[in-house]
């Protein structure tokens, strides 16, 4: 939003949060419809970006400069991480990109949580899991390849830390090529998909809370539902993490989420750890919130590690 106007991001955040709460309090079908519509927007946007990227590489942009694999030759396929030269630097750069890659992949597993509310999970979930293959190939690997073609890794905007659309590699490439209208359209798509991701995480968080109540890890109060099967207490609880978005001012999100993700991965690997230590990790995340943070990831990271690994413990009594 900061891309278009000087209006304070609080307005966007407020509208987005209100919409998220509204949709999650309707029955789960409406969450599904919201995902279908925003998902269609994401796919179309990404298809458009793929086509634009190919056109730019081939020199079809207004500046008529065919780039080809220029950036694979000119700065080279690897970057010197932190000024460390040689293959050590290359390897460290590759390693540090892992963190961002893991962050970009958040949300792939949402569909499994949807199994609990699917009409026909035995047919739909395996199908959806197979589609994840295409998702990874299309969105992530093809995307990474194309970004490597169209943007110079030394471009300052990439690391400007503005956190908004101006540091998106796609928008940078489009601007460089001199196309006028497209950045605005891409911005709109990114805004929609950020909202939709927040919507998903709110939903996932609420369902995790419900799962914790059925395992006796939270008071049964949290599992209260309306007659449409909406666990409204859980939805509101998960949603309450949302206003942390105000801390972020301009949708800056990366450092916190990285921490969340580290903790999440680490904890999934250590199911035997005590509840106490998991809580400490959770508190640690909260203290880091000054770097915040696309906030749902926080809620998500707090809830997911608390719920999944303890299953093995709770089933022992």
């Amino acid at each position: 939003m900061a891309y278009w106007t000087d209006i304070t991001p609080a307005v966007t955040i407020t509208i987005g949060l209100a919409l998220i709460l509204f949709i999650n309090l309707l029955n789960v079908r409406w969450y599904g419809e919201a995902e279908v519509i925003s998902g269609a927007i994401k796919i179309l946007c990404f298809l458009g970006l793929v086509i634009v990227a190919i056109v730019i590489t081939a020199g079809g942009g207004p500046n008529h400069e065919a780039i080809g694999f220029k950036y694979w030759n000119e700065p080279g396929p690897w970057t010197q991480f932190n000024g460390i030269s040689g293959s050590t630097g290359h390897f460290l750069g590759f390693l540090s990109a892992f963190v961002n890659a893991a962050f970009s992949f958040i949300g792939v597993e949402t569909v499994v949580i949807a199994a609990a509310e699917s009409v026909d999970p035995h047919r739909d979930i395996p199908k959806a899991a197979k589609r994840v293959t295409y998702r990874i190939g299309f969105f992530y690997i093809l995307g990474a390849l194309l970004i490597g073609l169209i943007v110079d890794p030394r471009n300052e905007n990439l690391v400007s830390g503005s956190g908004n659309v101006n540091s998106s590699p796609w928008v940078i490439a489009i601007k460089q090529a001199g196309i006028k209208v497209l950045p605005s359209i891409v911005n709109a798509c990114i805004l929609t998909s950020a909202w939709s991701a927040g919507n998903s995480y709110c939903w996932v968080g609420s369902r995790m809370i419900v799962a914790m109540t059925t395992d006796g890890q939270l008071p049964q109060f949290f599992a209260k539902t309306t007659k449409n099967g909406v666990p409204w207490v859980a939805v509101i609880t998960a949603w309450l993490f949302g206003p942390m978005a105000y801390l972020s001012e301009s949708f800056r999100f990366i450092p916190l989420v990285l921490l969340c993700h580290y903790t999440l991965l680490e904890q999934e690997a250590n199911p035997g750890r005590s509840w106490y230590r998991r809580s400490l990790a959770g508190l640690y995340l909260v203290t880091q919130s000054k770097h915040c943070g696309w906030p749902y990831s926080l809620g998500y990271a707090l809830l997911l590690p608390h719920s999944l690994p303890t299953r093995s413990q709770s089933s022992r009594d």
Partner: protein
Amino acid sequence: MAKSNKAETGRQSKKDDYASYPSDDTAASIRGIGGGHGPTQRRLQNYHISMIGFCSGIGTGLFVGTGSAYAKAGPAGLLLAYAVVGAVLWCVMQSIAELATLVRRYAPVKSKVPLQFANIDLCCRYLQLVRFPTGQPDSLTLPSASALPSPTATAIPSPSHRRSRPQL
């Protein structure tokens, strides 16, 4: 229940093992609304699940966050990092999806076990899967493999349903 039955009878595909489940109220209710994990209801249709699987959660991480990774790693580093993480996640996804729909293979036709299927208690599923081939009676309170085949078993206690509450 009648409502859900009407809505869902057209959905059985021929390949589907569902034909082997009894078409009583229980089975019908599984396929319609009601019977979700805990008190939730089954209302997500096929196309919802497809789209949730294909693009849910894609947000600024992909469109914007890639930029800083790219600045750190360069073209080849970025591609390689995404390919490696993607490969790991692909395996994870296949495994979780398998677990989330596990009971199908091992549930006897006449029990009411399907009431509990496809929830998100993945750890229990995993233990079930590990224990099933040995057929040992369970030291845990999981629905053990040896307890399942009884046709008179009405509601098999599982850790996720320890609290007594109406099933459905």
